[in-house]
């Protein structure tokens, strides 16, 4: 049974006013338990709008969102449940921090779930561990941390609810390359440890291609492509037309293949490509 299924999902902002805009239209997507999905699209293609439907923050203008086969908008109770089972980390989540201490901020979600003190403590420590926050920052104010650390606190605040689906909206936006890499590593670690479904939103191919099992490409409010990274990247021209590039290493690999070299097309990073080329030469390193 798929964890998440959307049927003809459409959302229109400010409908009935001169400012009305159709953000997504007729989106049909099925995401199974445990999948790692990368959601890619140009700015304004409707990614954020789409993911806010998954935990019931936005209500569809038409169509429906099914979680384990039930429409989450059919009752208040189901919607509240979806809030906790689908954890959503917003874009620039550090702007939502508000508590006096890091510990209290991470505990905000679990506290809203009405868990016991013991349980909350356990979850806060576990979540902080997943994002690599040392216990020494627990008693500091979240506002005085560095940008990267603030973001970790915000992500931990959602992970602490132990959602079975974790959705992250551009979690690496505005971070330096090191910060990017380590946050993406935290996310894969979390997936490996818990088996949660992950939906990672990004406008950059380089980020998600390496770690996602499946890519869904949004364009102009609807799904333009849906498949494994290999399948999606083989449509380079089409991707170019909708303003998305493929990772440089992949492009190089594809060109080499055109020239008759046997490198696999599934190279997404320079080091993967390097290894592939080395192994082609019989493992002899130079």
């Amino acid at each position, binding site marked *: 049974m798929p964890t998440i299924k959307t049927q003809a999902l459409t959302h229109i902002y*400010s409908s009935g006013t*001169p400012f009305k805009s159709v953000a997504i239209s007729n989106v049909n997507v099925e995401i199974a338990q445990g999948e790692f999905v990368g959601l890619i699209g140009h700015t304004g293609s409707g990614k954020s709008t789409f993911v*806010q439907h998954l*935990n019931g*923050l936005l209500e569809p203008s038409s169509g429906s969102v099914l979680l384990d086969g039930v429409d989450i908008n059919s009752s208040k109770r189901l919607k*509240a449940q979806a*809030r*906790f089972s689908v*954890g*959503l*980390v*917003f874009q620039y*989540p550090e*702007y*939502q*921090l*508000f508590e006096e201490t890091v510990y209290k901020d991470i505990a*905000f*979600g679990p506290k*809203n*779930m009405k868990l016991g003190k013991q349980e909350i403590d356990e979850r806060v420590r576990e979540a902080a561990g997943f994002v690599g926050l040392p216990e020494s920052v627990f008693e500091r104010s979240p*506002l005085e941390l560095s940008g990267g650390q603030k973001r970790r606190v915000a992500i931990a*605040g*959602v992970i602490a*609810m132990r959602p079975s689906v974790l959705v992250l909206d551009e979690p690496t936006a505005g971070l330096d390359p090191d910060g990017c890499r380590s946050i993406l590593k935290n996310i894969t670690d979390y997936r490996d440890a818990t088996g949660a479904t992950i939906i990672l939103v990004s406008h950059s191919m380089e980020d998600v291609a390496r770690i996602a099992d499946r890519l869904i490409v949004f364009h102009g409010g609807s799904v333009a492509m849906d498949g494994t990274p290999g399948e999606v990247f083989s449509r380079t021209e089409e991707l170019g037309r909708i303003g998305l590039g493929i990772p440089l290493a992949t492009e190089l690999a594809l060109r080499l293949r055109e020239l008759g070299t046997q490198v696999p097309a599934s190279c997404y990073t320079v080091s993967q490509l390097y290894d592939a080329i080395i192994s082609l030469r019989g493992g002899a390193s130079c």
Partner: protein
Amino acid sequence: MLKDITLGQYFPGNSLIHRLDPRSKILAVLIYIVALFLAKNALSYALLAAALLVCVAISRVKPAALFKGLKPLLFIVVFTALLNLFYIRTGEVLFSWWKLVITVDGVQTAIFMVLRIVLLVSSTFMLTYTTAPMALTDGLESLLSPLKAFHAPVHEFAMMMSIAMRFIPTLVEEADKIMNAQKARGADFENGRLTERAKALLPLLIPLFVSAFRRADELAVAMESRCYHGGEGRTRLKQLKMAACDWLFLLLSSALVVGVILLKRVTL
């Protein structure tokens, strides 16, 4: 949901009314309000209502938008109507029961008062619906500029107002975002007792204030790095200019006042 606030909202358009100089629109509204307070009989109210309807029609502002703006005032309107209806005891008695007496004068005054409030509010709404906020503050600054002679900080006041207006939508959007982010962590802004709901606002208000201060700081730096130093000697990209139709518009508005004064003598 927060976006539904209409107060001072601008509906972009390109009608004759939209294109008028903001100063003539501000003055026309003031003149219209004077006319409203001079109006004493049915004919003059009819004249004023007709004038406003013509403006609404020309501007192509949807009447529904005006009604939406009036909705928050429903209570005051009803309250005023009832007060006048029951407290005025002069004139022919139409209906009386126990201590309640309704007279012809009461009914008439109630209708006039309701009309007065509705027309007053609608005319100011028409001003903000058809004038971009920036044009409105420019117009105000220009109209108030004689006060500069008395060292009133007119330019600073107008600048503050335009910045405030510019940032209302930004802050509303930001509040919406933060609210959603906290809801995603299970925050509940809608249920619970009053004290609980007030407390539930903290996760919204604290980040909102933090970001408002951050924005203010960034804006100040950005303005200073572009050499902003107040209004002295500053010129404008868009000069306000009164055109023939602006003077005509003001003339017509003034004609309304004269019309209302003349109509005072007419008795039906």
